[in-house]
């Protein structure tokens, strides 16, 4: 659809804005990653050190690899569970019924709650002495009566993933419901009249049209999971040990706890690089479909 550049007019406001607002901070932090700047020593930016920060990060920092490992576990679990739950929930709720329409109304609630409040609340729910969730689980599984959720690496990771899923999955369900709603039902009806079973209808008709929405959900969730900070900060502080310290937490710590600004910038850009690779895959998927 080649036209004369009206598309630039349409793009201009957004592009100019993002360019103007984001250019300085992004550029500044990128440059910072190539310099040494330890706030404790000097309050002005230090000298140029080339790739030293990156080299130190990737070869000399056991914490970084622990954070990377924790991030892989967290993000994989978080994204898979969220997508599975929201896809399943959307298919379930895409029907008439009073319970279903009540459920659809409630879906927005967890998303609008502050992530910090969710993290703190879950921490209280799981407190081994007075936590209501810990007691409920212990009531159902008596062997877990004395487990201290947040002192066990696996359980703490489960808690962190669960709180993030609780925050996002309902909203993702809404998005997929929207996708389902825009699939015309005539094709499905026609297929059913022809005798196709539910699974075949889903696989051959619903899913191909739903896939773009699910792809958006998946990538969006991945981005937010990789950047997730507030929930982890309030739920476990990265503990026990370093079990739930993800890369996002690591970056924050380097900058605001250890005051090593250059190093923090470098680790942030490593995280960004990971996201860029993932985004590259997604773009191929989305723009690959000819219009």
């Amino acid at each position, binding site marked *: 659809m080649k036209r004369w550049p009206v598309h630039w007019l349409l793009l201009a406001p957004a592009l100019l*804005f993002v360019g103007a607002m984001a250019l300085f901070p992004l550029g500044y932090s990128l440059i910072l990653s190539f310099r040494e700047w330890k706030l404790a020593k000097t309050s002005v930016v230090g000298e140029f050190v080339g790739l030293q920060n990156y080299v130190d990060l990737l070869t000399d920092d056991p914490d970084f690899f622990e954070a990377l490992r924790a991030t892989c576990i967290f993000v994989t679990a978080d994204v898979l569970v969220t997508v599975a739950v929201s896809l399943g929930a959307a298919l379930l709720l895409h029907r008439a019924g009073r319970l279903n329409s009540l459920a659809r109304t409630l879906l927005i609630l967890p998303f609008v*709650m502050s992530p910090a409040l969710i993290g703190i609340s879950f921490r209280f729910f799981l407190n081994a002495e007075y936590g209501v969730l810990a007691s409920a689980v212990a009531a159902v599984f008596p062997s877990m009566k004395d487990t201290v959720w947040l002192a066990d690496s696996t359980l703490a990771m489960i808690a962190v993933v669960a709180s993030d899923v609780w925050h996002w999955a309902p909203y993702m369900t809404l998005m997929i419901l929207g996708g389902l709603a825009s699939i015309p039902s005539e094709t499905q009806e026609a297929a*059913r009249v022809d005798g196709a079973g539910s699974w075949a209808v889903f696989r051959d008709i619903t899913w191909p049209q739903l896939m773009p929405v699910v792809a958006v959900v998946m990538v969006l969730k991945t981005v937010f999971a990789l950047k997730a900070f507030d929930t982890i900060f309030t739920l476990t502080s990265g503990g026990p040990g370093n079990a739930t310290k993800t890369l996002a937490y690591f970056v924050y710590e380097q900058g605001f706890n250890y005051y090593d600004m250059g190093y923090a910038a470098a680790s942030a850009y490593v995280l960004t690089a990971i996201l860029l690779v993932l985004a590259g895959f997604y773009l191929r998927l989305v723009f690959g479909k000819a*219009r």
Partner: protein
Amino acid sequence: MLTQSAHAASDRALIPGYRQPAHDKAGDWLRQCVVFVGVCAIVLPIFWITLTAFKLPKDVYSLSAAFNFTVTLENLRTVFEHPWNLGSKIVNSLVVATSTVLLAIPMATMAAYAFSRFEFRFKKTIFLVVIASQFIPAAVIVLPYFLMFKQLGMLDTRSALVLVNMSIVLPYAVWMMKGFIDAVPVEIEESAMVDGAHRARVIWEIVVPTALPGIITAAVFCFTLTWNEFLFALIISKQDALTLPIGLIGFRTERGDLWELMAAGGILITAPMFILSLLVQKQFIQSLTAGSVR
């Protein structure tokens, strides 16, 4: 976006896999159970938090006082007093979030339309760059923003927060809306333009109404992101531009997390948002049943 309609007959037309032989009643019942469990999973934590808002601190930390406690309205009162001052923070949050959405959504819609309908050089790259601007963790970006606003003399202003939040939400808004605009068939526009309509009119009168559910989805998303944004608000504001998340985190004191106050603040914050989204859902349903989405 929501497939609710008044007539049972057309209900059935919307249901994928619809067939109601007698032996599927079991499947139905199972489905309803799962939905019920899901509803509980959402409602119970919120219910518990709401309950906490009415408890004294000593009852908050006790399981035996879970349902057996003296109800107190003191928390709801305290959060509006000094030094918490949630009242002014609510106002600031409302102003910042509303302004952000009102300014960002039109810009994003236009950009999304351009990405959806046109082919041009570097389209993929520009799209990627726009989205990638949000890949950087906030912790690393916030200090450069601080320096920038200090130079501009805009520290502790709501305008600064609006600008920051717009730069945060624009990439997501463009991304989401591109998907929704993609789903609007291009043929309607083309035929309208063949008939002589100006493209701007086409966008305003055809694309926007059709993609309205998507626009509203994106608007709600952007509003929520701005509403809960914490780190930038913390660093940029001092006293005039303090927003709700700062108020909420303020309840984490030396004495520990004052959960009863956080809960009180939390329900005061969430309730209006919930009501807002209910109203917005009505909008959805109207635009759907008006038949424009098919």
